[in-house]
């Protein structure tokens, strides 16, 4: 990582923790930055992050992957079935393989036959849904502990790590309620509390992707297939092979995301993905087709989901509203400094509305948090879409020698 990049990363992390800390101090709600919250947020974020990463691989090679949802579904099924039969690691492997099959199907339709990629992806989603429901009835109905719509429990567990010497003192520090310090302590402790090996693998896959796609000749060639495949072809890049490799790997990652979901809930269940493939796609766009931004988007989804689901006193959502307002004000301020008056006014008005909501209501229903990530994504797209830069030939069918 270059000096500039690491400075930007530290800056972003510092800002995020400061905002969380302000919110936590005003609301007095320790849950917002507690060890358990952060640890759980990682669990919720990882499958989405894997789907987003899968999107990056396919789209960087110029293939839009709307079929992520279907590939994830295949992954959840593979993990549930093989995990029940032969244990959890077989489940992981089967999830990856099933996802890869979905990816291969997309590659055949979109790359070999040049079918519209969004259409091919939609068809895969449909097929995956039907196939898994069908197989679930056949394989799980009469199995002990299974049912028509769910597999028997997956055997064994993925190792998780808790580093007590870090978590213990930091959690105590978090409970002190000191501005910034306690929040930082809670967040860091959360990273080392019940940390699943699969989460570590997810993190490593992000690091690997950043390196492979942006620092190696292989990555340059793969991305050239997504920017200008005809130019790449003229320089001797085997465009079709790269697209195939990228899309199949994309399927593997999405399948792993699905496997993560099944393993986290210890069974395969119909509908367990609940649109996470699409959410992964959103985080990819949110993150400008890059790993860092995609991971940030996934963490946002995971964090909000966690707060919604562990909300005992209906106070977490209220905290989120305040956090949202603070973020909107901060962005509004930045816009003002950059002399983008209209956007700034928009953000400041939205921020004020949320502040008003925060002070006028004693609690908010969980539905607010349910839709918050999607509204955030829309807001980000609405303000930043001019700055986002998708691969130039993303979604364009490629045929050798057929340049218009």
């Amino acid at each position: 990582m270059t000096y500039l990049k690491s400075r930007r990363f530290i800056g972003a992390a510092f800002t995020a923790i400061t905002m969380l800390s302000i919110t936590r101090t005003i609301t007095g709600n320790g849950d917002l930055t507690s060890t358990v919250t952060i640890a759980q947020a990682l669990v919720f974020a990882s499958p989405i992050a894997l789907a987003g990463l899968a999107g990056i691989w396919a789209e960087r090679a110029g293939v839009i992957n709307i079929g992520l949802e279907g590939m994830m579904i295949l992954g959840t099924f593979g993990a549930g079935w093989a995990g029940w039969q032969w244990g959890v690691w077989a489940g992981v492997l089967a999830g990856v393989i099933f996802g890869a099959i979905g990816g291969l199907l997309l590659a055949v339709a979109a790359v070999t036959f040049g079918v519209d990629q969004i259409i091919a992806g939609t068809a895969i989603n449909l097929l995956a849904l039907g196939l898994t429901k069908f197989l679930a009835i056949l394989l799980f109905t009469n199995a002990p502990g299974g049912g028509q719509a769910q597999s028997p429990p997956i055997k064994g567990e993925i190792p998780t790590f808790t580093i007590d010497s870090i978590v213990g003192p930091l959690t105590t520090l978090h409970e002190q309620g000191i501005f910034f310090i306690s929040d930082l302590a809670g967040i860091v402790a959360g990273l080392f509390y019940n940390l699943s090996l699969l989460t570590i693998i997810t993190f490593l896959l992000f690091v690997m992707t950043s390196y492979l796609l942006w620092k190696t000749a292989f990555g340059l060639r793969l991305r050239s297939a997504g920017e200008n495949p005809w130019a790449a072809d003229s320089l001797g890049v085997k465009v079709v092979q790269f697209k195939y490799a990228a899309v199949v790997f994309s399927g593997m990652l999405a399948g792993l995301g699905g496997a993560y979901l099944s393993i986290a809930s210890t069974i395969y269940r119909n509908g367990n993905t609940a649109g996470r493939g699409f959410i992964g796609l959103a985080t990819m766009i949110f993150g400008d087709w890059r790993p860092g931004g995609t991971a940030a988007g996934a963490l946002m989804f995971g964090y909000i989901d966690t707060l919604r689901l562990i909300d005992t006193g209906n106070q977490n959502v209220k905290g989120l509203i305040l956090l949202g307002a603070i973020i909107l004000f901060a962005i509004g301020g930045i816009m003002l400094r950059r002399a983008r008056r209209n956007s700034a006014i928009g953000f400041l008005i939205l921020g004020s509305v949320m502040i008003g909501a925060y002070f006028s209501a004693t609690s908010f229903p969980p539905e607010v948090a349910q839709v918050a990530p999607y509204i955030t994504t829309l807001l980000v797209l609405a303000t930043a879409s001019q700055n986002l830069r998708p691969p130039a030939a993303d979604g364009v069918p490629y045929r050798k020698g057929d340049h218009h």
Partner: protein
Amino acid sequence: MNLRRIGMSLIAPAIGLFISLAATAVILIAIGASISTVFSSMWNYGTSPRAMSLMLNLATIYFLSALAVSIGFKMNLFNIGVNGQYVLGALAAAVVASNLTLPKVASVTITILSAMIVGALWAGIAAWLKVARGVSEVISTIMLNFIAIGIISYIIVRTPIGTETSLNIRGTKAIPETGMLRGVAFLDPGTPIYGFFFISIVVGIAYWFLLNRTRFGFDLRATGKSASAARTSGVQSNRMIVVTMLLSGAVAGLVGLPYLLGDTGSYTLQFPTDWGFTGIAIALLGRNNPLGIALGAILWAFLDISSGQLILEGVPREISTIMQGLIVIVVVISYEVVRRYQVKSEQTSVAKALEKQEASV
């Protein structure tokens, strides 16, 4: 030449159907089921009067959904948001209709209009985001679908609009009988065909007329074929995007109504929420042509309904979903293969004609 063109447009779906049937047969053999029993069970039950009535009703819903999608497709707009547009439209319709005490015609007209307006407004958000902020409608409509579901569950669970319905699930209060459009029973005495069956035929004709016989339709198709050429000839592309999305959303608003006004009479938490995706698949099968879409909708509904008794043969009814998925992917691929073949054969025939000319000169 015309016959040849019709033949070419039919050959792709024919190949697709054949291959997907073959693939289904392979799956059935693999699970040890008898192919002939399964197919004959589907055919026998699927052609019974009751099943045919159910099929036409379901096809009505699919037809409207696919029309909504295909209006966008004609202009290269991908409206994945039909789901969100129709659930909100149906909820609005349920609320409006349950509070009306007007004669049937007036009540149903107002209900339909409110569903269309709400559907159009929800699609309008995506249109605005695209035109004013450059956000791809593919992603914004997906987000809007999730938001719509959240809004609906909030309204039904936490506001007075939602009450306990007779079925012990929360939903809107029941629409009075004067506000319903139950339809007529002509195939099977116990299963009326939705009144919306006939309305959807009118919508289909209106769609055809709008696209093929009006200036707007010409501009729309022109923009879809080549946005830059259309712009050069004076079509305002931003205006076209907004109007097309609004139209698509308005038709999407209708999707839930056949079921709402013909069957449940209340929008409950169990109202289906994924007919929009079905619409995408059927629009693809039907190539955005109203007749093709109608055929696709009937095929889809036939597979859905006729698989209803398969479990008696020990085969999960989801085999029909697999068939549907296979049909879409194989048909789409064979359309592309046939298109490439056509382009190639045109090129060779032109080249031959040119050769002849040169030889005669």
